[in-house]
């Protein structure tokens, strides 16, 4: 890894999916080649000085030969609202790749991907890399309702996909943790990779510890610099010291972090 770069990227396409979510395709050849699964970029989401901070978004998918990078995101506030209005030809400054991503053991294995809501964003690139390294991949996706299950078809390229929704409109009726417990009852896995809201990550963390299955969790925190310089994005570490989500994370081993601590 040579460290992040600053790129002004051309939008090559943007499409709106369900549930206020968007798939953004940027021309970013260097980023496409240098990033690894679980890393993110800081995107400038405005023209003036408001909003002032860049927005962290996970690298969702890359097409190395075409030099493009995809982001999958949900409109939450001012920055993502601005981003959703961009279209082909617009330019977006971006800093990346950033952070420590998922561990993809080249020896292969059986991996369980757990994506709650928008938490699926960093998992697609991971699924593809795992598949490349001969891993067997199963993806669990959870949401409130079927329209919140994002891009299940894309995940199907790399292995089986199972879903859970609160209302039962897609897959199992229940939470993604219910689905995870069921899945672990049925099969054994070498590794769990999870991303989603804190309660889900906390659940995965205790399941991982209880059942002795190693897990990696992708966390979120408010960020300013994105490169480890400002100490603004810390979360509690297992040994009481603060860890920088942008540098020691965003992906942590389940035992490293004190979630909601």
């Amino acid at each position, binding site marked *: 890894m*040579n*460290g*992040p*770069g*600053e790129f002004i990227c051309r939008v090559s396409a943007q499409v709106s999916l369900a549930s206020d979510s968007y798939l953004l395709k940027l021309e970013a050849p260097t980023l496409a080649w240098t990033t690894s699964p679980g890393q993110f970029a800081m995107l*400038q989401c405005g023209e*003036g*000085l*408001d*909003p*002032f*901070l*860049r927005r962290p978004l996970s690298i969702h998918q890359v097409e190395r030969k075409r030099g493009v990078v995809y982001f999958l995101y949900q409109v939450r506030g001012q920055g993502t609202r601005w981003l959703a209005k961009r279209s082909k030809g617009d330019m977006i*400054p971006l*800093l990346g790749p950033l952070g420590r991503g998922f561990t993809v053991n080249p020896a292969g294995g059986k991996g369980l991907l757990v994506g709650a809501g928008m938490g699926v964003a960093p998992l697609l690139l991971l699924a593809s890399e795992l598949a490349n390294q001969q891993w067997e991949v199963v993806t669990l996706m959870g949401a409130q309702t079927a329209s919140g299950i994002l891009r299940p078809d894309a995940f199907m390229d790399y292995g089986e996909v199972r879903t859970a929704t609160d209302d039962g409109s897609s897959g199992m009726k229940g939470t993604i943790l219910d689905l995870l417990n069921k899945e672990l009852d049925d099969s054994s896995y070498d590794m769990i990779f999870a991303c989603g809201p804190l309660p889900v990550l906390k659940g995965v963390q205790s399941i991982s510890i209880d059942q002795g299955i190693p897990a990696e969790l992708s966390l979120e*925190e*408010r*960020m*300013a*610099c*994105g*490169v*480890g*310089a*400002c*100490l*603004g*994005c*810390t*979360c*509690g570490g297992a040994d*009481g*010291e*603060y860890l920088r989500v942008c540098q020691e994370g965003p992906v942590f081993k389940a035992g490293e972090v004190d979630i909601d601590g």
Partner: protein
Amino acid sequence: MADLSVNLAGIKMKNPVMSASGTFGSGSEYASLFDISKMGALVTKGLTLRPRAGNKPPRICETPAGLLNAVGLQNPGVEAFISDVLPEMLGFGVPVIANIAGSTTDEFVEMARQLSGTGIVGLEINISCPNVKTGGMALGTVPEVAAQVVEAVVKETDLPVIVKLTPNVTNIVELARAVAGAGADALSLINTLVGMVIDVEQRKPVLGNVVGGLSGPAIRPVGVWAVWQVAQAVDIPIVGMGGICTGQDALEFILAGASAVAVGSAFFNNPMAAVRIITELDEYCTKHGVDKLQDLVGAAWKE
């Protein structure tokens, strides 16, 4: 190429653009983005005598054209800093200034002692941090108290002593005069304004620390005003800061009376901000036939 160099109380810099304490890590975080040796000087994160864990998260909150931070001086302590971080900072071949934040005068003196002879070329006395319970701003709002801290440090060290002041006071000129009288070699203006944001859904403050320091372009007019006033009242050089993002912003501070400038929050909006500022300062000088940038210091009130 105009002459951008500055001798800041004995610290020789090839240009006046420094990093603002706490915003630039050790510099290595940005080393893949631009050549750090282009900077005029680097300023460390605020150091304390003992290691500090810092405040509980969230520590950052965006505000209109700025941000609040409440990092709370997380740092490994001055000793670990000297052994683990300083070598890589010195490796960039740029003057390194240590920002020190004692909670007592004795702590300041002890840190000054430990830092001398380490390669550090100057000390920035931080009596203006709004995010700690002892020391910090409490030492920097009463002229006599501030002067006493400065006097003790100046007595201990041969390094140039830069005193960083808070704008959260009724009369910053009075404070500046007091610390100049106590032997400060230079001043840094300004540290952050105190502020807070409330999450209306949770009905509680966003920051784990409740309050934080407001920085970024939002506060730039307050910074320019502080420099303008103080530069006309004291004879020591000033490092200006507060929302500087462009060459034009830096020039506002220089014309107001700053000999050097520091870039902080701008890195978060544009990681290349320092490079942009140095380039634009040079362009301005060339365009306006200014041979030496230092000739512009205070020009807005001098003529």
